[in-house]
């Protein structure tokens, strides 16, 4: 059974103002990802990878086409309903970590729990899971990039999501930190989560069960 399915996704960004540039970011992308899969989306910068990921996560609406999560067409849902869906089923990890700067590592995870529908574990356990128990009271600025990304992974797990969506999770990390993060991702995959990663990291792509390459807004056969 596919947990994620897209049908002919199109996304056109219309610029505003006099010299507006219109960008055709996606041109009819259809894919299916089964439950528990580890899928990678690869491709060059500016070819539509992140756009595809954002549409799958319901952060944005497509210009045309549909996105199904568990057979539910999320393009028909309101903004709030999509937020609710994310709170229930999806965990996000971003390239630039995107932690809340004024909160500690623990509080960042706890904040995500405010919205979580099914909190399986407490925030301390999640930090332990990514090996950061001793950094619970550190603010993001006091953490290394790798540590911040692990906090972001702990945060993404706050709602025990079925799906983890990661946008270049190792993109801003040195190779050792990238390695650590990769290990965590694989661990999560083994625990049964469906993982979709946009990446430039070949190691990561090689370990994936499915690889989608996006080129000029379309999927190429790979």
């Amino acid at each position, binding site marked *: 059974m596919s947990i994620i399915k897209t049908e002919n996704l199109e996304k056109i960004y219309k610029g505003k103002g006099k010299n507006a540039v219109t960008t055709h970011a996606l041109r009819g992308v259809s894919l299916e990802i089964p439950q528990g899969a580890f899928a990678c989306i690869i491709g060059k910068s500016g070819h539509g990878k992140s756009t595809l990921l*954002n549409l799958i*996560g319901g*952060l*944005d609406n497509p210009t045309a086409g549909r996105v199904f999560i568990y057979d539910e067409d999320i393009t028909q849902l309101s*903004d*709030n309903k999509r*937020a*609710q869906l*994310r*709170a*229930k089923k*999806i*965990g*996000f990890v*971003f390239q630039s970590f*995107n932690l*809340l*700067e*004024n*909160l500690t590592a623990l*509080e960042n995870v*706890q*904040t*995500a*729990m*405010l*919205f*979580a529908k099914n909190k399986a574990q407490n925030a301390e356990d999640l930090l332990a899971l990514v090996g950061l128990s001793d950094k619970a009271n550190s603010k993001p600025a006091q953490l290394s990039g790798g540590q911040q990304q692990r906090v972001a992974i702990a*945060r*993404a797990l*706050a*709602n025990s999501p079925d799906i983890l969506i990661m946008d270049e999770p190792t993109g801003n990390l040195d190779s050792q930190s990238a390695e650590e993060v990769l290990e965590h991702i694989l661990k999560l995959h083994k625990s049964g989560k469906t993982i979709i990663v946009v990446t430039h990291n070949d190691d990561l792509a090689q370990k994936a069960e499915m690889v989608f390459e996006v080129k000029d807004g379309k999927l190429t056969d790979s």
Partner: protein
Amino acid sequence: MNLLKFVSRNLFRRKGRFAFTLLGISIGMASFVALLSIGGNMQSVVKQKAEGLGANFLIMPENICIYNQMAIVTGETISEQLHYDVYESVKNIDEITVIPHLTQKTAISEMPSVVAGILPEETMSFKNWTLASGEYFATQDENTAVIGINFADTRELDVGDTVTVRGQELIVKGILAETNGNDDMTMFVPLSVAQRIFDKEGYISYLSAKVADMTKMEFYEAEILSVASVQVATNDQLLESVLSILGSVNSTLQLIAGVALIAAAFGIINTMMTAVFERRREIGILRAIGGKKGFLFRSFLLESGLYGFLGGIVGVVVGYAVSLFAAPIINKDELSMLKGVSAQADIDVQLVVIAVGVSLLISILSGLYPAWRAAKLTPMEAINS
């Protein structure tokens, strides 16, 4: 982690901005509280003073204006005057006890002072004064003075001291025990002496009167008007007209307080709009990890409300402190009607509740638009900003 903890973390993250915004609403609220409590204080002082007159009603020059009526209540000089004959005519009416006053403002020991010419014997039996020290007048025309206790204190005068009024030396003969009225702030001299010093021979300022039965006031008034061309006002009437003036002073003060609050409201709007702009990316992150619009709306509104709540409390404390210090200064200079206001601005629980409530309401209203702006951002436009 809960909403309040989340919001308070945001509130204190920019300490300088937090402090200045809080200062804005606090100053607004402080002026609101100070002006209102000073206004309320004025009213209670005037009431107290009117009671201190010890009369049921006053007989004043015809067509006396309301400011002069107020001057009588507060013990000031009035510009119009009555002929002494009026006293002679009115005192013969049955059931009315009446005493004349000639009040004049002058400088004594380089301080503005009220000198009142009285008939010693009649005034003593009318007012039932007691003396704190020294003696009372023995004759109707001696060059001596009996002074109120505050008058003595503020000018460091004692029995036996000499006071010069318009070149005339007067010996302080006695000091009155505290009356809690204007008498405490007045220097009394025999009427004939006052008339001579101030070139008012044959004149008085007004008469205060007591009657046996207040229900027959109309009758007495008719009797008085049949013998003299004067204006009669009961103590309550007088109080009412004075309070109506204070009412308009109060509205002016409230208007000033209102302007201060509006300025504070714009301060909050500005701070919150800046916060929304600064935190666009965070708003996007919160949306991405499942935060609904309502959460963002509530968190920004609560943040704004906390400014009002904290500002209200600081404002009330500062406002009362200001009114405590300002009241005596205002007395001395601007509103002489307030002379003798005790420095204790009453802490009115109702005013405190209203002040904090108003502050909270203003801050929540100010937060509505910024909170709406925050909630309206889509995750993508917020994250990509």
